[in-house]
């Protein structure tokens, strides 16, 4: 074995003692300012413009984390969002954020970063012993190892997996930061601001099109920042900077940096995440941490560049082994040399340029290993220039260095091995065009044998691909393609491409070569026999051996391979792994990569926090709230609120001294039944219906007759669905010759409106009728109880006769309140008592509640909430939501006779099906426990007495139940087979949740005032 290690590194630049690997220059770094951050508690220095990765490298930190399964020491692989290894926890306390990629984390003064997945410490990690258990963790280990016994799952396996296999720790407290959403529109969206993207944006903008340019990085320029590309004799990044300034000056151009376009959706919609304040310690007051954009774009140009591939060889995961392009980015953009003594290992000319950049930065190049045989001219020139030996046709067969690379072992084309001391290995297996966004609509990429990568097979409408993402290999080609597609896209969006003299395109002149020859791995046939572990997916610790095993066990289809081995999962989604895995599978199976195929990706292309998707809609503001007009007054009284859909309603109104809600509700019910109470019922849907065909419409949507309803009267109505089942119910009043106001249940207000619109627009457009919601226009308050008329006499103008004779049950009238406010009065009752609903314009609702309290005081008036409302309607046997559950028919509800035989209405024909009125169907009954104190629970099953508690003997269910202070017993409504014929029978009530069986008597469903004398009082 030859040891070819060369002299120690010649010191570079003016590296200070705290940033020993820092160079003087770096086109994206402000070296004049020094900021401080901590890594695992150690205080380190950095410069503005640094990522956490570049800052760690500048400080000579190579070991950054431990791997997922085997806890292998890992460093920094890449310089971008594809990073699989360098995942850290950022910040602390409630802002602690796990699994953050150090390569896209901008360092700010005071940033605290912590390594993860190690215990007790990064350098000495006891779980590293997992490596010894490698056979347990092989492909499919979740499926094989933790299969049985089943009783071990929750108690043994899950805790073990969770402790050992987790990555970072989520914060324990609620996220203190806020997030928001916004929508943006443009004619042309350009994704990526490298040479192709900038040229495209410039060309499109020149036509007058509205352009949005999104760049996920903090700086524009793309690879122009990472390379030493020269455009028109000047550094390429200077041209990028100038172009950005030019674009910013254009009125219809918008540049969004730190904004990742993560998904492409139907109709030209794109999702983008703007990291507004990830690069500062705390967002400015009120401002969001991140902002989720929906971008609606006429046309889109993907200029997303490419992602470099590693090469698979034994122990290819040590800290210090990096992608070649990333090494150039650290040198050129960040002014950091990631190692003193470097080896370059590549299968293409692009990777070899790393040797030049490193050499120019002062590092020494130990060797260039070019897998191609013969090697290219460029390789020979490069090797001469940097003074390094060139191994044409060489391969790396081994690496060493426990927590960081110390040496590699090279096998030359003659089969001889050489040990090379080095602390940096720059690897390039070629580049994959980044076409993730193009695959979101199920476009399956095809394998390009020349490029040795998957490329777009067909470009979906409205999408254009430019630059390396489209296979353009040189800067000049990328610029030209971007420029041309910028015009094409603008033209497709309706702009004249001939307009707009954009400045001339710069020229790079001397074209860089690529000259790739495929090399996916440096393994011998039978990867399992290889010493050391050859990683394919660093993040999921998937090795060549795992892919080989998956192939042998039959999981060779790409989708199976992914799931069986966990390849391509987690934060990086296999950006650096997938193609190598496919190549490995192809090799194992003796097929081509094209035959093996590839998976496509779903959004998001980069991790996107759930908080950003929720935006401002979180906590109390998760959904909007609708507040009835008496809300403030009700809250002042100390009521307990409940959600009724998005409405916030008073549930009950506790009084001092009351010790339980039951006590409060009982009092509210007794007050109504003995004297008077009131309840805000504004939430019921109210629809104003007018027109000469209004009655016809009602006839067709309700089961019962409407034509003969006199003006000034209301009627109960039941609506069916077209399949014959009950849909909604409510009362509708006739206010004028062709004027009705319909009420719906609170829950179905929107659905009924939609239904009416459907009937009118789709079924009977010839009907001359108009309807509009007036739910919010009126504050409607139910005043119920034997003294309700006395209370209303204090409120309604004397000129209106409230007597039973003049304004009987189901009356409806325009009224004036004392003082002149115009309102409406309905004599409706949900409670079964003498009752009214009084409606006033919503602005008076608050005052009306206060007035009722005042004028009702002599009668002991009490406000009541939804709970008492519910108790009273059960006492009266009125069906509500639990009875109108979408599975019950008019017959089931005891309303079969309401179905008019003299007209067509929605649901008529299907409701006539014999099965829907079969006597054996469960029908509405009342239930009263044999022991008054035995609680009835909604959802309990009804069985014949003594029958086994099995599905076979199930005869129905309880839909609603309550303690009735009026009956002084639990009562319930339910549905029971042959219910109407079984009044008096005692049946069993089975509650499988509590495991109880009690007995109840079947009774008619009206518990209070079955004759209705109170209603008509």
């Amino acid at each position, binding site marked *: 074995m030859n040891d070819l290690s060369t002299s120690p590194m010649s010191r570079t630049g003016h590296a200070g003692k705290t940033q020993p690997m820092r160079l003087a220059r770096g086109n994206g770094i402000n070296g004049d300012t020094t900021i401080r951050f901590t890594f695992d508690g150690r205080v380190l220095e950095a410069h503005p413009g640094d990522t956490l990765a570049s800052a760690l490298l500048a400080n000579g930190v190579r070991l950054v984390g431990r791997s997922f399964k085997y806890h292998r020491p890992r460093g920094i692989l890449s310089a971008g969002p594809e990073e699989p290894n360098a995942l850290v926890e950022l910040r602390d306390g409630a802002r602690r954020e796990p699994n953050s990629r150090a390569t896209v984390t901008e360092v700010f003064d005071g940033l605290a970063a912590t390594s993860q997945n190690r215990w007790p410490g990064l350098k000495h990690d006891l779980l590293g012993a997992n490596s010894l258990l490698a056979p347990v963790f092989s492909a499919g280990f979740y499926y094989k190892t933790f299969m049985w016994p089943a009783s071990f799952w929750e108690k043994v396996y899950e805790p073990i997996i969770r402790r050992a296999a987790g990555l970072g720790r989520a914060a324990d407290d609620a996220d203190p930061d*806020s997030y*928001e959403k*916004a*929508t943006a*529109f443009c004619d042309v969206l350009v994704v990526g601001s490298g040479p192709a993207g900038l040229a495209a944006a410039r060309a499109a903008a020149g036509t007058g099109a*509205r352009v*949005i340019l999104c760049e996920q990085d903090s700086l524009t320029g793309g690879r122009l920042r990472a390379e030493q590309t020269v455009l028109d004799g000047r550094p390429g990044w200077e041209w990028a900077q100038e172009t950005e300034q030019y674009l*910013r*000056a254009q009125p219809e151009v*918008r*540049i*969004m*940096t730190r*904004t990742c376009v993560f998904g492409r959706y139907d109709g030209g919609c794109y999702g983008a995440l*703007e990291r*507004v304040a990830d690069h500062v310690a705390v967002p*400015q*007051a*009120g*401002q*969001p941490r991140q*902002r989720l954009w929906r971008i*609606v774009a006429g046309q889109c140009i993907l200029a997303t560049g490419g992602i470099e591939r590693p090469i698979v060889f034994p122990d290819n995961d040590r800290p210090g082994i990096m992608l070649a392009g990333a090494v150039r980015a650290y040198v050129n953009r960040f002014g950091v040399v990631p190692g003193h003594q470097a080896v370059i290992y590549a299968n293409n000319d692009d990777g070899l340029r790393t040797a030049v950049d490193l050499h120019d930065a002062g590092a020494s190049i130990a060797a260039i290993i070019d897998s191609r045989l013969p090697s290219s001219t460029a390789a020979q020139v490069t090797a001469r220039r940097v003074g390094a030996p060139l191994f044409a046709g060489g391969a790396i067969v081994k690496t060493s260095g426990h927590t960081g690379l110390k040496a590699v072992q090279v096998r030359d084309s003659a089969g001889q091995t050489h040990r090379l001391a080095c602390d940096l290995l720059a690897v390039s297996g070629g580049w994959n065009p980044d076409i993730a966004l193009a695959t979101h609509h199920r476009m399956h990429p095809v394998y390009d044998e020349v490029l040795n990568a998957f490329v777009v097979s067909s470009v979906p409408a409205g999408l254009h691909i430019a630059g390396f993402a489209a296979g353009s290999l040189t800067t000049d080609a990328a610029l030209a393609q971007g420029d041309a597609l910028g015009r094409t896209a603008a033209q497709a969006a309706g702009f004249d491409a001939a307009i707009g003299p954009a400045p001339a395109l710069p020229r790079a002149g001397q074209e860089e070569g690529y000259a790739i020859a495929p090399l996916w791995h440096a393994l011998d046939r039978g990867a399992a026999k290889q010493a050391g572990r050859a990683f394919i997916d660093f993040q999921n610790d998937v090795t060549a051996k795992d892919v080989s095993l998956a192939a042998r066990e039959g999981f060779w289809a790409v989708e199976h391979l992914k799931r069986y081995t966990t390849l391509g999962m987690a934060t990086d989604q296999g950006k650096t792994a997938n193609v190598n895995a496919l190549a490995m599978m192809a090799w194992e199976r003796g097929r081509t990569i094209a035959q093996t195929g590839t998976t496509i990706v779903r959004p998001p292309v980069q991790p996107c926090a759930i908080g950003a998707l929720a*935006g*401002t*809609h979180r906590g109390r*503001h998760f*959904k*909007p*709230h*609708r*507040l*009835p*007009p008496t809300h*403030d007054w009700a809250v002042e009284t100390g009521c307990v609120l409940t959600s009724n859909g998005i*409405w916030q309603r008073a549930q009950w109104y506790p009084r001092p001294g009351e010790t339980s809600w039951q006590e409060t509700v009982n009092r509210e019910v007794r007050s109504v039944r003995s004297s008077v109470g009131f309840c805000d019922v504004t939430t019921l849907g109210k629809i*104003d219906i*007018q*027109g*000469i065909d209004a009655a016809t419409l009602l006839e067709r949507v309700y089961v019962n007759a409407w034509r003969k309803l006199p003006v000034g009267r209301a009627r109960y109505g039941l609506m069916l669905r077209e399949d014959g089942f009950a849909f909604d119910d409510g009362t509708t009043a006739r206010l004028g010759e062709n004027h009705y106001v319909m009420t719906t249940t609170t829950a179905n207000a929107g659905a009924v409106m939609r239904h009416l619109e459907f009937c009118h627009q789709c079924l009977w457009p010839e009907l*001359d009728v*108009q*309807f*509009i919601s*007036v*739910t*919010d*226009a009126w504050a409607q308050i139910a005043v119920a109880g034997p003294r309700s008329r006395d209370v209303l006499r204090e409120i309604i103008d004397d000129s209106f006769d409230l007597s039973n004779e003049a304004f009987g049950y189901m009356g409806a009238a325009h009224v004036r*309140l*004392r*003082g*002149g*406010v115009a309102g409406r009065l309905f004599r409706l009752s949900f409670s079964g008592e003498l009752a009214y609903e009084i409606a006033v*314009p*919503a*602005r*008076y609702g*608050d*005052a009306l509640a206060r*007035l009722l309290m005042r004028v009702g005081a002599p009668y002991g008036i009490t406000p009541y909430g939804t709970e008492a409302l519910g108790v009273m309607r059960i006492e009266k046997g009125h069906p509500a939501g639990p009875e109108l559950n979408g599975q019950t028919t008019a017959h089931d509800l005891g309303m079969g006779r309401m179905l008019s035989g003299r007209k067509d209405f929605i649901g008529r024909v299907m409701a006539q099906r014999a099965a829907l009125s079969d006597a054996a169907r469960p029908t509405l009954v009342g239930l009263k426990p044999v022991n008054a104190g035995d609680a009835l629970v909604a959802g309990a099953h009804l069985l014949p007495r003594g029958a086994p508690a099995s599905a076979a003997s199930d005869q129905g269910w309880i839909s609603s139940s309550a303690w009735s202070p009026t009956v002084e017993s639990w009562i319930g409504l339910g549905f029971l087979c042959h219910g109407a014929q079984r009044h008096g029978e005692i049946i069993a009530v089975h509650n499988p949740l509590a495991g109880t069986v009690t007995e109840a008597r079947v009774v008619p469903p009206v518990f209070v005032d079955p004759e209705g004398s109170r209603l008509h009082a």
Partner: protein
Amino acid sequence: MPDILSPCSPISTEPCRVGGLTLALAPPDETVSIGGFRNSLPALHEAALQALGASLPQTPGTATRAQDLSILWAGPNQWLASAPSGSGLMEKLQAAFGAHAALTDQTDSRVTLTLSGPYAHVIAAKLVPIDLHPRCFGLSSVALTLAGHIPVIVVQRDLEPSYNFIVFRSLVRSLHHDILAAMQGGIPKSEQN
């Protein structure tokens, strides 16, 4: 006899200011919805012109104005007319074309929040998913849409631009919260030139 009920605003009338932006409750206009009966549409349009001096806008997403009266397109053959409180709008419309359209008092149904100040269009873009660019949405443009989860009618009031958000009364506090949150969220950097 004095009115025994006094009106109550559904939300504080005090404007909220964030930077140069203002969110304010607009004075409660009288508002009437107009639903044209299909068999008398020509007569309705004619009567509107004659009696009000304003046309019922036939182009979706537009509004017309005559003195104090403004009429918004609110759906096919549907409009929302409003005039300052006390102008007896319902009576005027009844007299003008009561036989040709369903007239429904919506004065208490909806509340108008006004967003004004520099970059109001940027704040509005956080709320409504419609294109507010001058090429698409201008003076007197009207859109029936969603602000987050809340149905709203958005109207551009002037060239500044400032906007009216017309919302169901029961939802005004949620909308107010959402607009205020959007104002506090600041102006995206990409909007600042």
